[in-house]
C-alpha cells in the first residue's frame, strides 16, 4: 500500500490538521508501512463473520426521562478560549465576515 503526499493532505483536511511539508512526507511513508502490515487482514476469510463494534452483552441503556442537575453555565464556560453572553464564541466562519 503506497500512500501519496496528496492522499495524506486529503486525510489531514478531513481531520482538520495543519501539517508541514515534512510531516506530510513522514506520514506518507509511515502510514504506508503501517497499512502494509495491516494488509495481512485481507487474507482472513470473514465472509460469514459479523462485526464486533463493542464487546458487551448490553444494549439501549436507558434511564427515566427526568431532568438532573447539570454543570452551571459559568463552570461549563470556564475553560473556553472565547465566550460571549454565556455562550461559546467561535471565530468567523466565512473569510470575508464583517462586523454585521
Amino acid at each position: 500500500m503506497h500512500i501519496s503526499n496528496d492522499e495524506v493532505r486529503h486525510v489531514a483536511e478531513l481531520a482538520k490538521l495543519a501539517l508541514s511539508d515534512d510531516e506530510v512526507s513522514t506520514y506518507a511513508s509511515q502510514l504506508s508501512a503501517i497499512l502494509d502490515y495491516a494488509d495481512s487482514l485481507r487474507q482472513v476469510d470473514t465472509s460469514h463473520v459479523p462485526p464486533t463494534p463493542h464487546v458487551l452483552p448490553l444494549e439501549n441503556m436507558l434511564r427515566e426521562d427526568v431532568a438532573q442537575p447539570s454543570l452551571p453555565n459559568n463552570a461549563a464556560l470556564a475553560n473556553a478560549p472565547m465566550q460571549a453572553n454565556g455562550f461559546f464564541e467561535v471565530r468567523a466562519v466565512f473569510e470575508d465576515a464583517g462586523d454585521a
Partner: protein
Amino acid sequence: MPTSLTDLTIHAALDGLRAGDFTSVQLTEAHLARIATLEAQVRAFITVTPERALAQAHAADSRLAQGDDAPLLGIPLAIKDVLSTEGVRTTCGSRILENYIPPYTATAVARLEAAGMVMVGKANMDEFAMGSSTENSAYAITRNPWDPQRVPGGSSGGSAAAVAAQMALGALGTDTGGSVRLPASYCGVVGIKPSYGRVSRYGLVAYGSSLDSVGVLAKDVQDAALVLGAMAGHDGRDSTSMPDAAPDFAAAVDGSLAGVRVGLPQEYFVEGVQPAVEVAVRAAVAQLEALGATIVPVSLPNTDKALSVYYLVATAEASANLARFDGVRFGYSAGADNMFENFRQTRGHGFGAEVKRRIMLGTYALSAGYYDAYYGKAQQVRTLIKDDFARAFAQVDVIACPVAPTTAFRIGEKSDNPLEMYLSDIFTVPVNLAGVCALSVPCGFDAEAMPIGLQLIGPHMGEAAILRVAHAYEQATNWHTRRPTMGSESPYAERAETTEIA
C-alpha cells in the same frame, strides 16, 4: 519493620493507620518527601498536588480517629493525568490541554476519594494514552526506576514508575491496548486491566471508547484488589458500565489452586520473544502447577491478527474522539481569524506527532473507499479474536503468557519507527479487543536486572480468578518484593544525570 513508610504496601499501611502507629499526614509527608527527592530523576508526574494531599490526609486522620473504616482511608495514590479531577489540571500529557481544569471528577477517582484516598499528584503518560514508552508525553520522558536509560513502558508509565519508585503506595492507570500491563511489567509492579464495563469510564478522557479501561498499578496483588474493589461497579453515567455489583476482590484473592485450570497459548511463545522472558514465564507456569493448578495447552489462533485489528479500531475511534479538541470549548486555541483555519492550526500545533499519526491512520481507515477494507474488516476479525478467547475459556479458568516480548527497551530506541514501537503491544492488545480482564505480576528479571511480567488473562468479569492465581503465585515467590535502589547517592542518580534526553 520497614525502614520507611514509603516501603509499605497499602494493606500494611492500612493496618498501621488503624492501629495508630502513624497518621495519614505522616504517611503522606513521607511520600511527598520521596517525590521531592526522586522526581528530578524519574519524572513520574505532570502535576504534584502537595497542599491538596495534606488537606485530604488531615481529613482522613479525623475520620480514622472516629473509627471510620473506609477501604482506602488515608492512603496516598497517584492518578494518571487522563482521569478528570475537578479543580486540578488534567493535561492528558498534551499541550492542547496544558491549562485545562476539569469542572467535574471522573467516577473512578471520585469513588477512591470517597473511600478515603489521598491524591499526591497526576502521573505522566503518553499523550492521550497513545504510546508504549511514555516518550510521547509533551511534558517529560519518565525514566524506568530500575534503569534511568530505559523507558518505563506506556502509556501509564508515570503511574508505574511512581509505584516502583515508592513515590505513591499505588496508582490508577488506563489500559486501551496494554497501557497498564506493559508498564507494570517493565517496572516490576502489579498491574490489572479489569474487564471492559467493570469500572466506569465517566470522566476518563476517551481514546478508543470500545477498548478503554481504568486499571490499577500496585506493589502486590492484594493492594491491586483493594483499589479495584473501591472503584468497580455500575455507574449510571457510563452506558457501557456493567450492571453487576463489584465482588469483594480483596477477600477473593485467598484460596488454593487445586483444580484450577491454567491455559498455555502456543501463539504467545513464538520467535521474537526474548529468551529470558520465555524462561521466566515458563518457570512461573511450572510454579502454578506445583501449587496444584492443571496446565492445559490452548490455542488462540487469531493472535497474529490482533495488532493490525487494534491499530485500525483504536485509531478510528480516536479520530472521532479527538475531534472535540477544536479550540472552542476548552484547551489551546491557535487564534487564527477564520474558524476552519483555527481548527487546523489549533490541532496541528496542539497535538504531538504520535497523536496526529493515529488521527491520520484512523481517519484514513474510516474514509470513503477504505472503510470496508480497513475498519469494517478489522471489526470482523475482532469477532474472531473474541471467539478465540470464548473457546479457550470453555476449557480453562485463566490463561498464562508473557506481557510483552521483551523487557524495557532503551529511551529513544524505537522513537523513529512507529511500527516497531507498536509491536511492544502484541501480547496485550488481544485482551482489549475481546473485552476480557488481565493482569501483570512480577515473575523474574533478565540478565541486565530488568523486571519481567507474567500475564494472567481471565474471562469477562472474571477478575476474581486472575487475582486468586496471581496471589497464590506471589505467596510462593518473592519477585514482587524487589525494589530498585534509588536516592541521591545511588548509581541510579549518577546514571540519570548522564542520560541525555532530547
